[in-house]
């Protein structure tokens, strides 16, 4: 899976600050269980993919994993031992920006025990603190 945009308006982006909590993508919408971020941070495409691979190894066939975030932001860096100046570095990798409250992964079709075990494995690949959440019941 290619975890980077197909088309972008600009190749390089400014770093930006991550302010506040997530006001969208903050509830379990597609599955029954979710993995919610508790900290702001950047999740790289490699970390997202590592999470997906670790989940696919322990999810049974009927389980379905949904990734709710996508790495839209490019992060550039300068080569080592290079003098400062001469413009911005080249894009190195792509990241998804997450705010506290963002639901990053969702699982459906399996029981709570399996979902907890799977999310525990994914959580080890994440650079932010996360927690297990369930779909909220209709009132």
């Amino acid at each position, binding site marked *: *899976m*290619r975890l*980077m*945009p*197909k*088309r*972008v*308006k*600009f*190749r390089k982006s400014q770093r930006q600050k991550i302010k506040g*909590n*997530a006001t969208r993508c*903050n*509830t379990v919408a597609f599955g029954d269980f979710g993995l*919610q971020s*508790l900290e702001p941070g950047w999740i790289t495409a490699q970390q997202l993919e590592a999470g997906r691979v670790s989940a696919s190894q322990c999810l049974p*066939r*009927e389980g*379905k994993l949904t990734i709710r975030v996508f790495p839209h932001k490019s992060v550039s860096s300068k080569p080592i031992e290079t003098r400062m100046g001469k413009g911005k570095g080249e*894009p190195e990798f792509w990241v998804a920006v997450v705010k*506290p*409250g963002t639901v990053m992964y969702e699982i*459906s*079709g399996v029981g709570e025990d399996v979902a907890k075990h799977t999310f525990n494995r994914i959580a080890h690949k994440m650079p932010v603190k996360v927690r297990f959440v369930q*779909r*909220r*019941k*209709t*009132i």
Partner: protein
Amino acid sequence: MEILELKAEKRTTKGSKAARKLRDSGQIPAILYGHKEDNVMLSLKDTDFMRLLQTRTRLIWLAFDNKKESALIKDVQHDNLSDKIDHVDFSRIDLDEKVHLRVSVEVYGEPVGVKDGGILTHTLKSVEIECLPAVIPEKIKVNISSLGLGKSLHVRELPQVEGIRYLPDPETVVASVHQISDVIAASEEELLAEPEVITKKPKEGEEGEPEKKA
């Protein structure tokens, strides 16, 4: 059907600052509206309301100002990080008047298609219904054990209960069983490719898009 009673108090303060103070003191801000009468701002004891929510009841008697009004729990807003209740909406109703509300759809049984190697996708987790307040169901239960591979369960096939009308399009899919599609691995070329830059200016000698004349 027994209707539970919830005690509430009228509140005069409004705004986010006042609401935050109220929540810190163990209360939940709420509002009662409907029937072309004035809105009433209320505050509830959070422990009382949590206990009421656990009973899964929707219809209640709301007691405030030495009077009782029949009301429907219309919406409950949560803080998505702490899971605490932020605000509750109540709608005034008449007990002999039909109401519109959402109830959850629960599927049970192992579909035939899943035994044959398919996977089950439960799309419609809740459905909007019209019914009298006295017959509001807690949830709609559907047996999907006869669902074969490549087949879908539609709203029109949901169990018909007397006094309940399903409001979505009858052809809306509730659940389906389908084949697992393999994830196509990206080729090396695709993985190394850079995204197309849509604002890129064409270099000299290269043919760009013809400029539009104003």
